[in-house]
């Protein structure tokens, strides 16, 4: 169907160039303004990785429930999985930047001599000493490798099964995917939470929240669903999915997106509520940082912009079935998703002795924009490359007929 390149669809190379420009600016930033640039790079990397991991979850959920309504859009999620190995490559600069400076560019606990505000160094901090069995450099990098290896393994398995089924139509591929989904959901849930703990939570290693992994999961699902809605709307508008992907499919995607909006709010609220209620200094300081100055506005913006507005918007049935409305909402959710990551990551700069005033520092905008652009460029490059190689829907999936007739 789409084996030969359709000229009206984006050229992958263009996206590779855009990504490369973004990444080069980010790399320049590592030398000009190391801390700010590497924090922004972390935000950009996690933003794009969370989209791909969300896609991985969607594919696994599809297989484990033997779903039929999502068959038509599953191929696009699989195309996004092609970006996962590249996300692993994009993680390498974080390793390099850590050792380029005195190991405390991002994760301060990596440098035992790092001066803590008001009380000694990291090495002498009892809260760090008790956590060294988990928070030590060797184990940290091993965990990152384990994460990426397991994600890439599952991504490749689902892609291979799905593409091979296009060729021979055998149901064996579906069974294989279902078995892998059962194991994969457990493994990816654990590794993705671990990634959240390691990459974001350990930026402020005093702080801990058991909700954090679930928040990370909810966030990545929201981002992935938003991207999937955008891609579906784009492919319907451009023609390839026109008449295949109908408004009922859109409604289902939107409903799932709505469900994860509520889930995100539930998790975020519970995290705040437990910390507020417990009132323990090791936990509350994290939110105290986020209630000072402009971060207070950001917090409020998250409550109303990331929950209340999408909630009331997607509560309405007519809006969930209209492309323009859902395209707007998907863009909005992606934008707020980025804000949520900024909210979670950037205030940690404060314990580096810098005041985290991203919005008062023009260069911060540049680094953030460059890293997000770099990540998105690589993501879409991998997506379109994969898109042009395979069929637009899993044409010989046992459930595809049922899915195309989905209208009630």
């Amino acid at each position, binding site marked *: 169907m789409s084996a030969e390149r359709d000229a009206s669809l984006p050229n992958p190379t263009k996206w590779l160039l855009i990504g490369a420009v973004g990444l080069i600016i980010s790399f320049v930033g590592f030398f000009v303004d190391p801390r700010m640039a590497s924090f922004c790079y972390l935000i950009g990397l996690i933003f794009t990785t969370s989209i791909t991991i969300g896609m991985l979850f969607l594919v696994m959920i599809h297989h484990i429930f033997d779903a039929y309504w999502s068959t038509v859009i599953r191929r696009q999620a699989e195309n996004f999985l092609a970006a996962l190995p590249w996300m692993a490559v994009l993680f390498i600069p974080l390793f390099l930047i850590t050792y380029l400076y005195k190991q405390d560019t991002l994760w301060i606990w990596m440098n035992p001599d790092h001066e803590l505000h008001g009380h000694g160094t990291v090495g002498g901090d009892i809260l760090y000493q008790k956590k060294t069995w988990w928070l030590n450099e060797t184990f940290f990098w091993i965990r990152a490798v384990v994460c990426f290896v397991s994600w890439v393994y599952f991504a490749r398995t689902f892609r291979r099964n799905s593409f091979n089924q296009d060729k021979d139509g055998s149901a064996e591929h579906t069974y294989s995917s279902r078995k892998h989904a059962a194991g994969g959901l457990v493994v990816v849930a654990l590794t993705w939470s671990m990634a959240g703990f390691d990459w974001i939570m350990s930026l402020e290693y005093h702080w801990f929240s058991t909700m954090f992994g679930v928040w990370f999961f909810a966030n990545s699902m929201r981002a992935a669903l938003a991207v999937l809605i955008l891609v579906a709307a784009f492919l319907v508008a451009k023609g390839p999915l026109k008449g295949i992907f109908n408004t009922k499919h859109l409604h289902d995607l939107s409903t799932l997106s709505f469900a994860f909006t509520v889930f995100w709010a539930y998790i975020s*609220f519970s995290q*705040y*509520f437990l910390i*507020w*209620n417990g*009132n323990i200094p090791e936990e509350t300081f994290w939110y105290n940082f986020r209630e000072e100055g402009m971060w207070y506005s950001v917090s409020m913006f998250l409550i109303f912009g990331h929950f209340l507005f999408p909630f009331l918007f997607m*509560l309405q*049935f007519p809006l969930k079935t209209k492309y323009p409305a859902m395209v707007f909402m998907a863009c909005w959710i992606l934008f707020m998703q980025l804000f949520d990551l900024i909210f979670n990551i950037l205030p940690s700069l404060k314990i580096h002795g810098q005041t985290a005033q991203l919005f008062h520092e023009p260069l911060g905008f540049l680094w953030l924009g460059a890293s997000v652009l770099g990540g998105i460029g690589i993501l879409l490059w991998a997506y379109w490359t994969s898109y042009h190689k395979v069929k637009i829907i899993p044409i010989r999936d046992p459930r595809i007929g049922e899915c195309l007739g989905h*209208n*009630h």
Partner: protein
Amino acid sequence: MADKFGILAKFDTPADIMHAAEKVRDAGFKRWDVITPFPIHGMDGAMGLKRSWVPRFTIVGGTTGFIAGMSMIFFTNAFDYKILIGGKPLFSPFFAFPVSYELTILFSAFASIAGMFILNKLPMHYHPALKIDRVAEASDDKFFLYIESEDPQYDDTKTRSFVEGLHPVEVSDMEA
């Protein structure tokens, strides 16, 4: 027959009754219904049914529940009998939230069920179709359609010939 309820037509297959329903819809009848052994997908469209009004009941119930939860906790903890616990404020939306949230869900569920009953005119202990023994076949393998005599377009002879034009297996009058 002054107290005639309407005209009943029997069909053999789901496809037949779907087509008949489309014709009745296009003829502009308002007070009519179909009786089938199982839900037929696409029947809503064939009958020209609009989206249900139940969600409106749900949102009213949910909002009421949320406000009830918040004001209940405000009234008990911060107004009627002030209790200071652990140095927390007398009232804060944070600790009132879980209760309000649960009440939102509870009241939404109640309102949805009540709305469903009201819109379906339930409980309905009697329906003229029950007088006709053959309608029991609708719980097995036959499909029925009736047009009420209360319908503004209803006319004894015209409507009967219209219903016969739908190619039913049989047509009969329904007593009120």
